[in-house]
């Protein structure tokens, strides 16, 4: 799970931006590293995270081999294709619900993204 402090930070970022921006709530971007065949956020292995509608996850490969992040969930189906160390790809989650994110090459890499 995402540590509550991190969640608060993420929420705070969203709230602060909302106060500063007159029009709409600006979306946040969160980096999810692929490290040792696990999903890592700010140095911690995560198997589930909560984000807000409109937020973007940036998947960044930190391993010396390729990963291929995808989801076949109805809410958000995507296939980022394979990418090597140092590269990253983004997905924006535009609807509320739950999305299962996996690596096609390494199915042990699995994460639930709850979009609120």
């Amino acid at each position, binding site marked *: 799970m995402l540590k509550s402090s991190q969640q608060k930070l993420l929420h705070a970022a969203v709230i602060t931006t909302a106060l500063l921006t007159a029009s709409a709530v600006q979306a946040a971007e969160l980096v999810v590293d692929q490290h040792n065949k696990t999903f890592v956020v700010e140095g911690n292995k995560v198997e589930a995270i909560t984000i807000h509608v409109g937020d973007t996850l940036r998947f960044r490969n930190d391993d010396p*081999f*390729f990963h291929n992040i995808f989801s*076949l969930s109805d809410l958000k189906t995507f296939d980022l294709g*394979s990418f*090597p160390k140092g590269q990253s790809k983004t997905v924006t989650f535009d609807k509320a619900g739950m999305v299962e994110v996996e690596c*096609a*090459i*390494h*199915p*042990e890499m699995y994460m639930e993204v709850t979009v609120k």
Partner: protein
Amino acid sequence: MKTHPTLTRTARKVLFIACLGAAASSVQAAEDYSSFLRPAEIPQPDNNRITTARTELGKMLFFDPRLSGSNWISCGTCHNPTLGWSDGLPTAIGHGMGVLGRATPTILNTAYQPLQFWDGRARSLEKQAVGPIQAAGEMNQNMDELVKELSALKGYRDAFEDAYPGEGITEKTIAKALATYERTIVSTESPFDRWVKGETHAMSKQAQQGFEVFLGKGRCVLCHGGFNFTDNGFHNLGLKNDDDPGRYGIRKVKILKGAFKTPTLRDVELTAPYMHNGAYKTLEEVVDHYNRGGDTKDNLDPNMQPLHLSASEKASLVAFMKALTGEPAPVTLPRLPIE
């Protein structure tokens, strides 16, 4: 002369020992390769812990040809312990001598694999175990029939009661017993393991050079990493004339077209022929395949590329793989109940 990394390490080690003024006791290379040793603890689910009664029952079922519809094929027919828990065939032979599309994978160290079958369609050994029994092309057995047949034998009634008291003879307990036996089939100590533990001469110089190629220029470790020499992942290796969808049949993601699970390299010397379709007879042919960077480039795994290995590097890789062969682990066969 080119300085070889192994020699460099040895030199460092000698220097290190000299500085410490330590005795000549053999110390392994500067790098710590202990992550390549098999964890002593065998992973096992809470609802099916390994016990002697369960292992013994599982072994009876594993070697009992009455588990098949023909009463002629046992799990051990294809997963034959005398052939590296495989069958020595390019692809398996099943019910009615029908030739199947994929090679029989070894069951060595399957306890450590999160997904079973070449395409990873079973998430546990319990789920895997009852697949081939019922598959028409494999053992062609009706599960209700099998439960009836086993229940008619006092020897099995007692063995099931010992192993799973009060649970009866069911598809579930058959699966649990078979899974338990399979979990106990683990790799034994190989020359490589003894070398990692510090026996400098346990593995030949050539095999040590092969390990360097394995970790570096050969790019093998990108997929065959860890003690079981597998990433438990799925890759398309660009084999010729192969239209098997592989993992794509389970997960419709482009990269998985023609992708199959990375097999362990432990005891690999004993499990020829190689690849999911048995395309190669020898490890030399396998190394040549990787050295070419695969043959069919359509949807080729991105880790694959031509390696430009020299003849001696290729030979050293094979020597290294052969150093992964464990000590023989004799299998005592059960006496099966006939009434």
